C-alpha cells in the first residue's frame, strides 16, 4: 500500500471511531491500535486471573456456607471474565499461550492491587467494595469503547462487577453491625485497602503515558485523576453510612468544588509495586507460573487425546 493509501485508511478509520461506529476484528485497523488493544485487554484479562488468587485464599476459610458459595461464584466469575477477555484478545491475532507467556515473563502487567495480601475475612468485603468499585469506574466507560469485542465483553463484565461490589459492601455492612471484633476487622481492612484502591485508578495525569491516544480511541474517556475523584466522592458517603472511617486525615468535603479534597498518595509505594516489589508480586507469579507449568502434562494429554480421537474419526470415515 502506498503511504497515501494508508493515510486514507487511517483517516476513514478515525472517522468511523468519531461516529461511534464499532471496529470489528476483521476491519482494517492501524497496527498501533491493534497493539494498544492487545496490551490493554490482556492486562485486563491478566488482572482477572491474578485477581482470583487473593480471594481464592479465603475460599477454604469463609466463615459461613452462604459466604463461601458467594465467594466461589465471584471467583468463578473472574475466571469467566478472564476467558472473554482473552478471547477478545485472540480476535486480534495473538494466542492465549503467547499472552500467558507475556504475563509469566513479567512483560505484561496486571492490576497492582492484587499484589497485596488478603489477611482477614474483611478483606473479602473490602476487595468487593473498593477494588471492584474502582474497577467499575475504570470500566463503565469502556462499554462504549471503539473496539467491538472489548465493548461487548465490558458490558457483561460491568454487570457482574457491580453485583460483586454490592456483595462486598454487604460484607462490610454485616461486619459493622456485628461485634467490636468484627467492626475492628472491617476498619482494619479499609485502612489497608483504601490507598491501594486509589492507586488502582492509575498514576496522576501528569505521569500517565498513554492517555491522549487512548482518549481518541475511546479506550479512555476520563483522566485518571477525574476517575479517582469520582471514586472518592462515591465511596466516602458509603463508608460514612456504615460507620467506617476513611484513613485519610486530609480528607474533607470541599463545598466550592462539590468534591472531596484528599491527602497525598504514596506514589513511591505505587511504583515499587508496579515494578514487581510489592508484598505479593513474587507469590502471585509463583502461583500462576506454578499452575501453568504444573498443568503442562495435563494440557499435553488433552491435546494427544483429541488428536487420537480425530484420527479415529477419520479412519472410520474412510
Amino acid at each position, binding site marked *: 500500500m502506498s503511504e497515501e493509501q494508508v493515510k486514507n485508511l487511517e483517516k476513514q478509520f478515525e472517522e468511523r471511531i468519531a461516529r461511534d461506529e464499532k471496529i470489528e476484528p476483521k476491519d482494517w485497523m492501524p497496527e498501533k491500535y491493534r497493539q494498544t488493544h492487545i496490551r490493554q485487554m490482556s492486562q485486563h484479562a491478566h488482572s482477572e*486471573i491474578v485477581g*482470583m*488468587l487473593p480471594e*481464592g485464599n479465603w*475460599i*477454604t*476459610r*469463609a*466463615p*459461613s*456456607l*452462604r*459466604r*463461601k*458459595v458467594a465467594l*466461589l*461464584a465471584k*471467583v*468463578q466469575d473472574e*475466571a*469467566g471474565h*478472564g*476467558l472473554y477477555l*482473552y478471547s477478545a484478545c485472540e480476535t486480534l491475532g495473538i494466542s492465549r499461550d503467547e499472552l500467558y507467556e507475556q504475563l509469566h515473563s513479567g512483560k505484561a502487567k496486571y492490576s497492582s492491587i492484587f499484589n497485596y495480601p488478603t489477611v482477614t*475475612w474483611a478483606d473479602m468485603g473490602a476487595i468487593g467494595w473498593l477494588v471492584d468499585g474502582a474497577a467499575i469506574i475504570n470500566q463503565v466507560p469502556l462499554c462504549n469503547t471503539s473496539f467491538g469485542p472489548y465493548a461487548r465483553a465490558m458490558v457483561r463484565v460491568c454487570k457482574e462487577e457491580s453485583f460483586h461490589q454490592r456483595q462486598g459492601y454487604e*460484607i462490610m455492612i*454485616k*461486619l459493622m453491625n*456485628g*461485634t467490636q*471484633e*468484627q467492626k475492628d476487622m472491617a476498619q482494619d481492612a479499609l485502612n489497608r485497602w483504601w490507598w491501594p484502591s486509589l492507586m488502582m485508578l492509575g498514576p496522576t495525569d501528569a505521569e500517565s503515558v498513554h492517555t491522549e491516544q487512548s482518549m481518541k480511541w475511546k479506550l479512555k474517556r476520563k483522566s485518571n485523576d477525574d476517575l479517582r475523584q469520582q471514586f472518592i466522592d462515591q465511596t466516602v458517603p458509603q463508608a460514612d453510612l456504615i460507620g467506617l472511617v476513611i484513613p485519610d486525615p486530609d480528607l474533607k468535603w470541599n463545598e466550592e468544588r462539590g468534591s472531596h479534597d484528599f491527602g497525598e498518595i504514596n506514589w513511591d509505594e505505587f511504583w515499587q509495586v508496579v515494578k514487581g516489589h510489592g508484598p505479593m508480586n513474587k507469590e502471585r507469579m509463583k*502461583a500462576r507460573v*506454578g*499452575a*501453568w507449568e*504444573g*498443568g*503442562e*502434562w*495435563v*494440557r*499435553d*494429554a*488433552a*491435546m*494427544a*487425546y*483429541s488428536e*487420537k480421537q480425530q484420527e479415529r474419526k477419520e479412519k472410520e470415515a474412510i
Partner: protein
Amino acid sequence: MKENLYKYILGIADNSLILGQRMGALTGHGPSLETDIACTNISLDLFGQVRSYYQYAAKIAGDKRTEDDIAMLRQEREYLNVLLVEQPDTDFAYTMARQFLFDVYHFLFLTELQKSTDLTLSAIANKSIKEVSYHQRFSSDWIKRLGDGTEESHKRMQTAINDLWTYTDELFHQTDADKAMISEGIGVDVSKLKEAYYKKVSDILEESTLEVPESKYFQKGGKQGIHTEHMGYILAELQYMQRAYPNMEW
C-alpha cells in the same frame, strides 16, 4: 429429634462438604482456565447441595443449630464423610480420579434418593442430580483424556486410580442410620448400587485404556467418623473463622 434421619442426612451431606472444600481449594491453580472454572463450579454445586441438606438437618434438630454450626462446629469424629473425598490433590490425575470415583457413586445414589418417601430429600436429589450428571461427564472425560492421552498422563492416572481404589468399597457400607432409614423407605440401600457402580467405573476405565485394579483390600472408617490424617487439616481451615470468632454473624 429424629436422630437417625439427622445422621443419615449428615452422612450424605458431609461427602459433598469435604469434596467441595477440596475442589474449592484448587480455584486459581488449575491446569487451564477452563478446568479451573469447571472445578470451581463443581465446588459451588456441592456447597449448594450441602446448604440444602444442612438446612434440613437443622430443622430436624429443632434447636438453635444453624447450617453453619452443623458444617463447621463439629469435632472431627462427628463428620461422617467417606475417606475417598478427603484424599489429597496429589496431582490433577488424583483430583479427577477422586471426582470420578465419587461422581459415579453420587449419580447412582441420587437416582435412588429421588424415590425417597422423604419429600425434602427427594426434592434435593431431584435438583442435584442434574448438576451431578454434569460432574460425572466432566470427570469421565478427564479420565479418558488422561488415561488415553500421553504416556505420562496414562501412568499418572493409573497410579491415581490404583491408590484411590482402596477407598471405593466404603461407599457401599451400610451404617445403622442407613438401615433405619431404608426400613422407613427414606434411605437408599447403597449396597445395591455396588454392582452398577463397578460396572460403570470399569467400562470407563477400560475405554480410557486403564486397568481396573484388582485389589481385595479396602479402607473404611469415614462413615464411623474415623478419618485419615488429612481430615484434621481440612477441618482446621474449614472451621477456622467459626472457631476463632465464635457466635458471630457473617
